[in-house]
């Protein structure tokens, strides 16, 4: 048994669904006086516990609204769980929102340093890897052009190149990446495959059982925020097949 890379311990996430967002004082007082402020509680995740070892590739299966994205956001640290804890060993790179933190007025070069520091890289490290990032992103001389003039494909290429410059300990993938054109997609897939081969722990979210079977060795199934199956992918697959029938 390898070392545990990620422990999700009894995590629950509650949202208050208010029919309208009250965001100014006047409305708040009026509604409070009328006692109209009521919240519908909604548990997006309820008592979810699992752990994975270093080098595991975990598939997260579930229908729409099962809580997959919420779980990923809790693991990435964007949401703080209402109950429970997540223990992470090492650096997590979520390939969910490429280029979160890009500034449109900044040039590609400046954004490498900005987004790189969002991901927790040091300036020195980014400087040493700068050439490599530019080369991988295939942006060439566009690197000195402000980002607002980039196409969306160029932005995600740049985002991917920065995020994957160092091998993360835990990689979070939502569906199969579709970055840029066919050629770049091939290149980025190869890069991810190589990371997996090197022993990076992977969390992979998908609707497709085929993909999960191909990539992962372990799997969990979420249904209405609850964990209903957890184990090796061969054991979990039949359960999921039953659900989607």
């Amino acid at each position, binding site marked *: 048994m390898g070392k545990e890379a990620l422990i999700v311990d009894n995590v629950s996430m509650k*949202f*208050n669904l208010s029919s309208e*967002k009250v*965001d*100014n*004082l006047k409305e*708040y007082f009026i509604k409070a006086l009328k006692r109209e402020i009521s919240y519908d509680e909604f548990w997006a995740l309820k008592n979810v516990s699992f752990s994975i070892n270093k080098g595991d590739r975990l598939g997260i299966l579930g229908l729409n609204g099962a809580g997959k994205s919420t779980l990923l956001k809790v693991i*990435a*640290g*964007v*949401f*703080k769980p209402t109950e429970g804890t997540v223990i992470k060993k090492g650096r997590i790179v*979520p390939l*969910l*929102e490429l280029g*979160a*933190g890009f*500034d449109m*007025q*900044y040039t590609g070069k*400046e954004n490498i*340093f*900005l987004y790189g*520091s*969002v*991901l*927790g*890289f*040091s*300036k020195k490290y980014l400087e040493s890897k700068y050439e490599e990032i530019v080369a991988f992103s295939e942006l060439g001389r566009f690197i000195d052009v402000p980002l607002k003039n980039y196409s969306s494909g160029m932005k995600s290429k740049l985002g991917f190149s920065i995020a994957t410059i160092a091998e993360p300990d835990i990689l979070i993938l939502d569906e199969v990446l579709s970055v840029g054109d066919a050629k770049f997609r091939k290149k980025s897939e190869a890069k991810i495959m190589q990371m997996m081969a090197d022993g990076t722990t992977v969390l992979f979210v998908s609707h497709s059982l085929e993909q999960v079977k191909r990539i992962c060795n372990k799997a969990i199934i979420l249904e209405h925020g609850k964990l209903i199956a957890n184990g090796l992918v061969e054991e979990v697959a039949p359960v999921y097949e039953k659900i989607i029938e």
Partner: protein
Amino acid sequence: MAIFLFKSVILSLTIILNYDIIQSVLIRKNKDNVMNYIKNFWQHRYLLGELVKKGIKLKYRRSYLGIIWSLLEPLLTTIVLTIVFGTLFGVKDATFPLYVLCGRLLFSFFSSGTNGALRSIRANSGMIKKVYVPKYLYPMASILFNFIIFLISLIILIPLALYCHVTPKISWLYIILPLFLLILLTFGVGMILSTIDVFFRDMEYLWSVCTLLIMYMSAIFYPPEKLLNSNFGFLLKYNPLFGIIQTFRNCMLGDPLNWKYIAYAGGFSVICILVGTVIFYKKQDVFILHI
């Protein structure tokens, strides 16, 4: 009477807050918690640097004069203010332009710093929704970048001081003290405002009215003596920003410092920081549900 009331309010506030801090920091997971915070901050220090740099770089990007505007702008307004109010109040003092410029510079940092911090969480909501970043970095970065621009703009004081026949003196070095108080105050107020703004957007408009009032209550372009000696002297005395600006002026002109102002402004700033940190700390996890 008023002083007594004010003191008791401050005292009870400190007691409540101390209790809170003891609860949240000491009892829960004591040292581990604090160490984790420091470690986490250390890991994100490059991001803080990048955010500060971004603020400075983008502020004057694509303008021809660039950073020179941070010198030119206070100078131009000072000229107008000196002519209008110097004439209106019949000020004969030759150092009046310097007096106005000091007030103008310090106030504009306070104003831009607090307003920047106020908007910082919402302005960066795109980033907050997608990746984990310690959220206090945003108000902090916004205040720091304004502070750096403010420090650059202080250069304009030297030529104006010479113009007013104020020769450079050793007491100029003491401006570090009011500057330190000023950044403490701005940071404390900024943290409070940035937390409130997430929940009540009206704060943006309310605070722009407040800054206007604070400007009139800080004796920026008029001599304070008349007001101080009237029944409304408390307007200035209880405004920590006025104390800081006066201290700064005293340093520039080589006048003796008023330690009452310094102590009051210092105490006020520390309380603001305590209140700001505690409410920010308590509310930061639900920011994401409201932006």
